[in-house]
C-alpha cells in the first residue's frame, strides 16, 4: 500500500478542485486558495493498493483537467500548480515538497 500525497500549490484563488484516483472521486473542495507566504493551498493524502494509478485533477469552473499515470510502489508526492496563463501542471517526486 502506498501513500499518494497531493499538494495544491501555487495559483489557486477560490477555486473548486476535484481529485479522482482511477476515475473515482476522492476529493472535492470549494474555495481552494493558495496561502501565498508558503505557496500551498491544501494537502490531500490518499492510500492506494494499486501498483499504478491514474490521478486526475479537475478545476470544473475553469474547465481544466490534468491527468497523470503514477507508479505507486512507493509513497509518492504530487504538486499541482495553476499557472496564470490558464495551465494546470502536475509535478511528481519521491520526497515531500518543502515550504517556507
Amino acid at each position: 500500500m502506498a501513500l499518494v500525497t497531493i499538494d495544491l500549490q501555487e495559483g489557486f484563488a477560490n477555486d473548486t478542485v476535484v481529485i479522482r484516483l482511477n476515475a473515482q472521486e476522492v476529493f472535492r473542495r470549494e474555495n481552494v486558495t493558495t496561502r501565498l507566504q508558503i505557496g500551498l493551498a491544501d494537502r490531500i493524502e490518499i492510500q492506494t493498493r494499486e501498483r499504478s494509478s491514474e490521478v486526475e485533477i479537475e478545476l470544473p469552473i475553469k474547465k481544466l483537467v490534468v491527468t497523470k499515470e503514477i507508479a505507486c510502489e512507493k509513497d509518492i508526492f504530487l504538486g499541482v500548480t495553476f499557472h496564470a496563463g490558464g495551465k494546470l501542471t502536475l509535478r511528481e517526486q519521491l520526497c515531500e515538497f518543502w515550504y517556507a
Partner: protein
Amino acid sequence: MSKDKEKRQNEINAREEINADEYGDIFPGRIRFPRHTPCTLALSVSGLYEWNWWIMRPIPIHPRIPKTSPIPRSPGLLPYESLEGGEDYDVGETTTANETEAFSPILPWYFKREELRLDVDGRYPQMTASGTMFSGLSIRVHWIASLAKVGKNKWSGDIWYKHGSTVNLPYTKVKITATPSFFGNQRKVTVVFSGGKGMSRMITYKYKSRYFHPVEFEFDRVGGAPCVTSVETTAHPNHPAGMASETLTIENVYCRAGFNVSKAGGDDTIPLSEAGANARWSDMEMHDAMQIYWSKFADKAQWSMWVLFASLHDSGTSLGGIMFDDIGPNHRQGTAIFGDAFIANAPSGDAAPDAWVRRMRFWTACHEMGHAFNLAHSWQKELGTPWITLQNENEARSFMNYPYNVSGGQSAFFADFEYRFSDSELLFMRHAPSQFVQMGNADWFDHHGFQQANVSADPGYKLEIRVNRKKPIFEFLEPVVVELKLTNISSEPLLFDPALLSSGQDITVILRKEGRPARQWAPFAKYCSASSITVIESKKSIYHPLFVSAGVNGWDIAEPGIYLIQVAIKNDEEYIISNPLTIRVAPPHGYDEEFIAQDLFSEDVGRVLALNGSRFLDTANNALSEVVERLPKSRVAYHARMALGNPLSRDYKLLTLDKGKGLKIFKKDVKGATKELDAALIENISDSTETLGHINYKNIVDSYCEFLSGEGLDDVAAKCQGEMHKEFTTRQVLQSVLQQILDTQKSYGSKS
C-alpha cells in the same frame, strides 16, 4: 565556538555594520572619526536625508502681551512652494527668543517635511533616488527616480514612479548633487526637480542616516528549539568562489539591505505549553504567543517584528517557517522558523551536514523575515498587482527563492548564493512607499486590492467609479453614493447584461479605511433577475449608482477619514476592475452630529436608506426624522427626506403577523410625500443632485413626477423636470439625458 564567544562575535559584527559616520545617528551631537572604515566608504553618500519646514506656534502658559518677530522663512524654495497655507499663520502670537522660557511647549502650527533616499553607492546600490513629501497633516506624495552618474557626486534621471497626492509633484526629472563629508552634520544633498508643468524647484536635504529605514527585531525561542541567528559564510564548502569568510548575523543581512537594525526585548524563552497539547504550533497559537511575549506588540504599523524560533508547525516537517501573521488588523508583524523541520536534515552524502543545516536554518530565518517586509517568493513576483510591474525571478539567488526549486537544486543555488536579496527586492524594501513595506501596515500581499482576480489581458470594457462632485469629500453622516460607468473600449459592439451592475450578485466592492484592513461591501439586497443582455456600442457607456456606505456587515463608511473604494464586476469568468477611488469623510461639525451619529449608524437606518424608505422600521424613521429636524441643512438631511417621503408617495403593503390582520395597507400620504420630496429634491437642487448622485437623483425625480402626475399635478411634475434640466445642463450631463428630460417635461406640460 562557545555561545558567549559567538554572542560577542555577533555583537562585534553588528557594530561593524554601523559605520563610524553613523555615530551621530546613535549619539546625536557627538562626532567621531571613522576608525575601521576606509575613506572611500566613509565618503559614500547613500542614505536617508531630510528637510523640514515648520512654522511654530507657541502656547503661552501665562498670558503675555505678544511682541512680533520675523516670519520664519522657508529655506530653499522657489515660488512654487511659497508659503502655501500661509493664511493659517498667526503673527499675533509670535514671540522673541528671549521670551521662550515663559512659553511651553512649542507645537508646530504648520509643517512640511521631505525625505530623500539616495542609493548610489555602498552595498548593492540600486542607482535610485526616492522621496516622500509630507505636507500638512494629510498630503503625502512619494516618488522614485532612476539615476545615472553625470559627474563627481552628481546624478540625474527621470522620475518613473509617483504615489499619493501626485498633483503636488508635477515634475518628471531630478538632478542631484551630493556633498560628502566625514561629518554627518556637514553632509547634504541638493535636488533640482524639473520637467512637467511646474516651475523647477531646488531643495537641499540634510543627512540623517546611512540607512533608509529603521527596523527592530525581537528573537524569542521555544525552550529546546534550535535558534540560529548567524552563520559562517564559508563553513560549508559549497559557496561562491571568492566569498568573504565572515560570521554573518541576521542583523548584518538587513543592515546590508538598507535598514538600521536594532534589537528589542530580551530574546525570551517561551514555555512549550504555549503550543497547546501537541507541542507543535498552529498559526493561532503563534499569534497568541506573539501578543503575550513580544515586548513591542501593538495593533499598529511599526518598523518592528517578532521572530519565533520553534521546533515544528502543526503541519509537520514539510514547513520550515512561516510568516504566520495574516490574522487580525495588522499583518506581517510576526514570523516563525521551525528548526526541526526539513531544514534539519542535510542531503545524504553532504560534505558538511552540520554546516548545511545551520545555513538552511539561517536562510529560513532571513526568508521568513523577508515576508514580514512584504516580499513575495521569487516566483510570485508577477502575481496580483505588484507595486510596480515585476518579473518572476525563478533562478534568483535570493533569500526569497527556494534553494531546492532552482535548476540544479540546492547545491546550484548555494554555489552562487551571496546571502542577499535580489535587486528588485532591495528596490522595494528601500524605495517603495513605506506603508507597503512597514510591518503591520499594508496587509500581506495586499497593497493593491484584487490581488488574485483573473483580469482579461485584452479587456473590452473599462469600469470607472466616481462621485458627482469636484472633490471627493463627504460630510460626516452623509451617505456615500458612487456612480459606476462601464464603457465599451473595444472597436466592436459588445453584449453585456446591465443587471451585472445592479444585481449585487456579480459585483464586488472593496472598501478600505486608511490604516484598517479592507472590507467587502455586502449589499442589503441581491436581485435575481432574468438576463437582459443588451448591445453596448463601441465607446458607449452604461451607468449605475451604488449606495456603499452600509450593508449587512454594518456601516463600512462612517467614521471620518480617508477611504479607498474599488469595484470588480464578474463578466463570464473574467473580472472587470475599476479604478480605485479615494474619498474623504470630513469630521463632524459639532455635538449635534456626533449625537445623531449614534442613532444613524444602525443597521435599520442603513437598510432604509439603501432601499429608499420603509413604513415598518419605525426606529430608523425616527432617527431620520431627527436628522431632518436637527440638521436640516446637512447633506444627510436630503437622504433622510427622500427615504421618509418616498414610501408616503404610494399605497404601502405591509405583511403583519398579528392575528387576524394579515396584509395591512397604508394609504399614500400626498401632503407628507410632497413636503419631504420637494425639500429633498427641488428646494436646493444643486446640493441634492450632488449628494444623491446624478443617476440616482434622476431616477428619484422621475418616480416623484409620476406620482405627481398621478395626483393630477402635471404642472408641478413639468416644473420638476425643468429644474432638473437646468441643473443638469450646468453640470454638463450628457446631451442624450438632457433631451430625455426635455421630452418628459413636454409630456407633462401637454397634460397640464
